[in-house]
């Protein structure tokens, strides 16, 4: 199937769903995050008032500046991004301030045993980076198949001792390419997507993630 066909097919879905989505955006919800945080703060106050000793005991274990949306939880400060794997989480090697970080789990953000994956996202006018670090049972082979299936140009390279599969997909009007890279390092599968016209951009990200293992 071609992407244009898929866009056409999405136009054929149940009209009630399309109308419902339109209604959802007709009513702005810009304050929702703050409302949610306000409700959370109010609940915390009640809890504190009702059971101060318990609350005091609990507070150090709470991530205080994160919010939940489905199973994605935003990581708002470096302290919520614990150092793991060879003394340092690879995503931590990225410039924290340039990215938004999320972890995917129903559990404690500071307990990496609860993590299923970590996502880093960065976007500006000309390019975008999406980094997906997958923990647990995911294997690089699963993702290689996925990548070969959808992308046209693929190649495998060994970079800093790690086998990296790289793919490129040509885009339509505004941007020329998405570049993809997938590799496994320290039992973590990394899926990197960079929307950029410069193929060096994805190598720059890979280098940031892999070079420290040689220098440490």
């Amino acid at each position: 199937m071609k992407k244009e066909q898929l866009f056409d097919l999405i136009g054929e879905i149940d009209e009630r769903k399309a109308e419902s989505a339109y209604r959802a955006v007709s009513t702005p919800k810009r304050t929702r995050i703050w409302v949610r945080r306000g409700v959370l703060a109010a609940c915390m106050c009640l809890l504190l008032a009702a059971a101060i000793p318990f609350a005091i005991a609990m507070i150090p274990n709470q991530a205080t500046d994160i919010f939940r949306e489905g199973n994605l939880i935003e990581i708002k400060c470096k302290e919520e991004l614990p150092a793991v794997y060879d003394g340092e989480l690879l995503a931590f090697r990225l410039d924290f301030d340039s990215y938004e970080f999320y972890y995917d789990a129903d559990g404690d953000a500071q307990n990496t045993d609860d993590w299923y994956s970590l996502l880093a996202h960065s976007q500006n006018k000309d390019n975008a980076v999406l980094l997906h670090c997958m923990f647990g049972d995911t294997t690089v082979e699963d993702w290689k198949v996925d990548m070969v299936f959808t992308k046209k140009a693929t190649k495998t390279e060994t970079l800093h001792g790690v086998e990296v599969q790289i793919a490129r997909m040509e885009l339509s009007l505004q941007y020329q390419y998405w570049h993809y890279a997938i590799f496994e390092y320290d039992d973590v599968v990394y899926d990197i997507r960079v929307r950029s016209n410069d193929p060096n951009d994805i190598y720059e990200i890979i280098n940031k993630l892999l070079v420290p293992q040689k220098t440490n």
Partner: protein
Amino acid sequence: MEDKEIVSLYWERNETALSETALKYGNYCKSIAKNILGNEEDAMECVNDTYFKAWNSIPPHRPKILSTYLGKITRNLSFDRFRRNAAQKRGGGELALVLDELAECVSGKDSTEQAFEAKELAQTINAFLDSLSKEKCDLFLCRYWYALPIAEIAGRFGMTQGHVSVTLNRLRKQLRTYLTERGFEP
């Protein structure tokens, strides 16, 4: 004016139907066309064509949801115009990005056989949307039905742009898996 009354005007062949449609749904149709085409002039032409097409198709049709009926006409007309513009290497609104995202869900192959599956595929996409929470379904459709920019979706849903991008990325992956598991080679 209520939608039922507007539809009745179409059925009575009363041209007030057009001005009432423009009054109530002009901006809605224009926003769809503009998201897809990124060009005010082309968008306005598509909106005018939408009124014309609605006039010619009601009757015999009696749309249950007038907004989506008109929106769908606008979407189709705008998409046709987008393809013509793309062939001439000009223009390009949010849709270029939307299509590039959707490319991750499909193989890019074209086959005649697949054309016969279109109806079944649309039903499967419907079922996929049914399996999502309402918020995720709305998010998906805002991007892939209405071609809304990510920044606008984020503003409307009270989310960050990164959160919207990441969620959409996952939904695309889920859709591809969903289609593959049901025997469609996307």
